């Protein structure tokens, strides 16, 4: 038996022991033990954790605590508003006002629950699918949709809202979040980062590197994987053979939770718990939230080519908004009057969004050169003058 195999055998048989004698008599110390690391990592549960089931009934679940009534009412209100603005954005693509829109519909519990769990000092790292999350964080709709309107690549100031630009290549922002969290750790600033990804992005190498760096640094970062079943058209079974995406955390020594992603109370509680864990200096958490993308990938996609209507109907029965509505009504926390007021507010915001998207964009071709470097280089300044002269010439030619 080789030294290595002998070591592994001894190791496997004595999980609590951290010293091993090699055949030559040398002592090898491994600290902490594998069992210590497994205990710290907290593998995900077999069943997704949840607090309110799909029929609106309360559930008992370990780790997570039901948020107070006022928070549940606010979660509901924000989901209704988010859903209305999402529907408005989809409608704006049909009028040619947006270049493209990847809908959040069906994933409101993940996006609203996670964002409302953030503290003011925390940072959000969203993807293109997470416009409802960006809006919930308080970014004005016209600024949030600048990317999808085709106006500029990011329409808001990330520092103002503590929201990074929406990530388009996917997974790349996971590393930015870990770096930001590591800086917070070095500065003792108390900030944490929440990074959103989908199931597809977990196949990217950057996600693995981000989870691993976060684990090594014990960085104050929370990974929320919105597992909505599809990466555009590719189903989860073609992404991974893992029992659950949350198991990726186990491989890097990270605490991992598997939750019902259509239960906004569970998402809020899990992200709050993870942020508390991070803020206490106890490191990162990976949360896999099971949810479903009700719309096609974008307005340009045809979901009928890769999934059945029956499947969609099955998920509509687990709708995140309706189940919380049932729960709140059953407890006298929501009535028709409040619902009507929320709907009216949402309608007003949608009208505001329509109006903003009908206004001409605030654009100046000279700005193309303004932000490439901190100051334009001489060559860029010359190109800017040439472009402006070309535009002036072209406009001079017009009748």
């Amino acid at each position, binding site marked *: 038996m080789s030294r290595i195999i002998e070591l592994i055998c001894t190791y496997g048989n004595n999980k609590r022991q951290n010293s091993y004698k090699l055949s030559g008599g040398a002592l090898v110390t491994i600290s902490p033990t594998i069992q210590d690391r497994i205990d710290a990592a907290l593998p995900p549960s077999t069943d997704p954790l949840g607090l309110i089931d799909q029929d609106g009934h309360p559930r008992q679940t370990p780790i997570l605590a039901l948020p107070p009534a006022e928070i549940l009412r606010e979660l509901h209100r924000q989901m209704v508003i988010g859903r209305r603005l999402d529907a408005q954005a989809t409608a704006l693509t049909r009028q040619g006002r947006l270049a493209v829109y990847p809908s959040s519909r069906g994933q409101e519990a993940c996006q609203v629950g996670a964002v409302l769990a953030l503290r003011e000092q925390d940072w959000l790292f969203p993807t293109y699918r997470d416009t409802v999350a960006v809006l919930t964080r308080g970014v004005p709709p016209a600024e949030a949709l600048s990317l999808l309107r085709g106006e*500029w*690549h*990011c329409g808001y*100031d*990330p*520092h103002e809202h503590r929201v*990074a*630009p929406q990530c388009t*290549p996917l997974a*790349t922002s*996971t*590393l*930015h*979040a*870990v*770096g*930001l*969290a*590591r*800086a*917070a750790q*070095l*500065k003792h*600033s108390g*900030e944490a*980062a929440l990074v959103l990804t989908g199931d597809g992005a977990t196949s990217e*190498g*950057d996600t693995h*590197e*981000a989870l*691993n*760096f976060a684990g*090594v640094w014990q960085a104050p970062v929370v990974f929320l994987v919105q597992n909505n079943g599809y990466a555009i058209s590719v189903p989860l079974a073609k992404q991974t053979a893992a029992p659950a995406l949350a198991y990726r955390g186990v491989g890097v020594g990270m605490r991992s939770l598997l939750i019902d992603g259509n239960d906004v109370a569970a998402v809020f509680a899990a992200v709050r718990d993870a942020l508390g864990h991070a803020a206490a200096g106890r490191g990162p958490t990976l949360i896999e939230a099971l949810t479903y993308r009700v719309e096609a990938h974008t307005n340009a996609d045809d979901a009928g080519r890769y999934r059945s209507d029956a499947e969609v109907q099955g998920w509509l029965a687990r709708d995140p908004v309706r189940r919380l509505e049932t729960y709140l009504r059953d407890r006298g926390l929501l009535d028709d009057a409040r619902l009507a007021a929320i709907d009216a507010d949402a309608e007003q915001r949608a009208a505001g969004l329509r109006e903003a998207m009908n206004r001409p964009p605030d654009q100046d071709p000279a*700005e193309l050169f*303004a*932000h*490439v*470097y*901190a*100051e*334009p*280089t*001489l*060559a860029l*300044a010359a190109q800017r003058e040439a472009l402006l002269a070309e535009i002036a010439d072209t406009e001079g030619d017009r009748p």
Partner: protein
Amino acid sequence: MTGTLEEVLAQAGPTQIDTERTGVQAPGIRSALSPRSAPARTEPVTMVGALNAALADALADDPRVLVFGEDVGTLGGVFRVTDGLAARFGEDRVFDTPLAEAGIIGTAIGMAMNGLVPVVEMQFDAFAYPAFEQITSHLAKLRNRTRGQLSLPVVVRIPYGGGIGGVEHHSDASEAYYVHTPGLRVVTPGSPADAYHLLRQSIGCPDPVIFLEPKLRYWSKEPIPAEPGAALDRAVIRRAGRDVTLIAYGGMVGTAVEAAAAAADQGWDVEVADLRSLSPFDDATVAGSVRRTGRAVIVHEAAGFAGYGAEVAARLTEQCFHYLEAPILRVTGLDIPYPPPMLERHHLPSVDRILDTIARLQWDAGNEHRA
């Protein structure tokens, strides 16, 4: 920029270019301040030692500066550029990372978003390729993506180029990949003194800088003057001459200077321009030289096809056409994957190959060069 990290973060303006630190003369910046000075080192120092001193001085000068990468902590880097820094500045400032280059660049981006100034190492040129997406799509573009709201003062140090007997993946001249990406500054020193000052200037720059270190010159030695020879974005004339301009950068500056000395024996008075900044390109200095000499040869290690020299030749032709006595020629590596070390001498530009190329500059055509 001294004080605790918290004090410095409270006063730092992250999006402004610091002309004092970089010497960059951008439009709109009227200041003619010279680049930052440093204590002179009168004893000869290797390029490795000069880079180490620059990192140490930057870490001492600004608490926001961090140094990290693979093996840069306890070991001090495979070339010892970071030797002793972890012991002196502590594991919070100088640290080893997991072995993952995209991870190093991606987390550096996040740290810069949160006010720090990361100086990271890619262990070798070809080992940086896993980080390519993070460098080209994010490090280079986040400032533009956010209309100037995110400033990423990250320096990416990459030992590059051949001539040291490295096996495959250890000798690439990879500059063309980076210079083709708007938003990056790409610089490379040719000498120890320049290595010190260019690195200090790069760390003081609010733009991301790809800092290419020519391994071929890591062990060359010279004293380091207190004042840098030029600003971050300027080329310098290393040797004045009247007949032809040799344009080189990084490891090839020394080869070009050697070739110029040999050419003098054959009656050619050769000027050597050291580009230092590959992007942006210093048109004024280099075109000024070529207008004076009327002839130009560009020297680089990387493959010639679509290489950096092609851009230089095109720009100079556009700017100096009526001054040229001969076509602009290039001496480059062959258009092959980097060869095994026992054959690399056939690939790299040599003094002989440079002299042969100078000889082809139409000296017999009856054209008198400009005095």
